[in-house]
């Protein structure tokens, strides 16, 4: 069984101040994650698992994208605190997904 390597992720938080006249744009926080997987199939499984759940708060947005064997996530929030909670939860679910793949993989293909 192929052991899944420990996932490495990069995270940088930017604080963009929008147009001062538009209060809705003020104080937007962003976080980008890039998570490489051993194979494109495993990245796809993680993508399909994690994209389903909506963020519980509308002040937070989450976008997932799949690029070959890399899962990219972008979070935006109106407050740093909300961003931290959302990214923290995502990392928990990501870790759970990776552990599940590590213990019960590799992916099977059924003949029907």
């Amino acid at each position: 069984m192929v052991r899944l390597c420990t996932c490495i992720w990069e995270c940088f938080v930017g604080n963009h101040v929008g147009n001062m006249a538009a209060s809705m744009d003020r104080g937007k926080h962003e976080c980008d994650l890039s998570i490489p997987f051993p194979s494109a199939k495993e990245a796809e499984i993680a993508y399909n698992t994690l994209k389903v759940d909506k963020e519980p708060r509308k002040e937070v947005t989450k976008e997932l994208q799949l690029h070959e064997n890399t899962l990219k996530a972008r979070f935006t929030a109106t407050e740093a605190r909300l961003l931290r909670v959302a990214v923290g939860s995502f990392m928990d679910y990501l870790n759970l997904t990776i552990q599940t793949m590590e213990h019960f993989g590799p992916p099977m293909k059924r003949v029907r």
Partner: protein
Amino acid sequence: MPTVIGFEGSANKLGIGIVRDGVVLSNPRHTYITPPGHGFMPRETAKHHQAHAIEILKKCMEEAGLKPDDIDCVCYTKGPGMAAPLISTAVVARTIAQLWDVPIIGVNHCIGHIEMGRLVTGSHNPTVLYVSGGNTQVIAYSQHRYRIFGETIDIAVGNCLDRFARILKLSNDPSPGYNIEQMAKKGKVYIELPYTVKGMDVSFSGILSYIENVAHKKLTAGECTPEDLCFSLQETLFAMLVEITERAMAHCNSNEVLIVGGVGCNERLQQMMRDMAVERGAVVCATDERYCIDNGAMIAQAGWEMYHSGYRTPLEETWCTQRYRTDEVEITWRK
């Protein structure tokens, strides 16, 4: 002969079970237990489920003696329940469904209880009393729906009991409801409490506030014991549940009662229900704590029925919902 694996984690119990053609092959479970006086919170409960999911899943497959090839379908609790614990469980279920390349089905938690209750007790078309920490409903099947005839209009009966256990600082191990039950057996004095049946519906929040007040006053003054309060609370709450169940049975001409959900473990409730049923010439069906309490096999059993009758949940629709009414599901597997 489909073999179905079910994932349940809507509250503080994480369970994974496997059912094949009406036989439970395995059903391990782990309960998140908080210190006395404290309830379980969603975030910590989700952490508990995340920490134990892999271990429970391995145990489940080993006890059933199965390999991934043997599984035909993955089922998980779509709702109702706490959001973070539900999602934590669903994440594992979605991943497993993709790894093993099998269909996935989202199951309603309440219907899981009902279908497991029907399977284990062999009851045919019972009036169902579903009582737990999160739900209190009187349900009867009609025209492809589990219809809600009566329910709590505020907190669940199990929630009321659990909160009262917190007031008394009872242990949460194995469960606060169980510990109240044991205390109640030693109670001798009945203390009058509000009786709040509203037609087919019930209300428990007033009773909880009232008995909290009584606890602070009378216990301090030594006018009664904690055992008396547990006894009195059970007598009042359970009499209310028996009344609304009997009313539903009368409306539906039913001669079977099925008690499901965690509070259904309570032997005093079963006894009171049995007394009522005997007077009506009906029978009471109840399961023991293996299936009364939230478990994975009940999700697998309901999932088995759904799978067998053609249900599938597309992966994009495998989200979870904190509110998922029992009567929202079309029951295609019954006539």
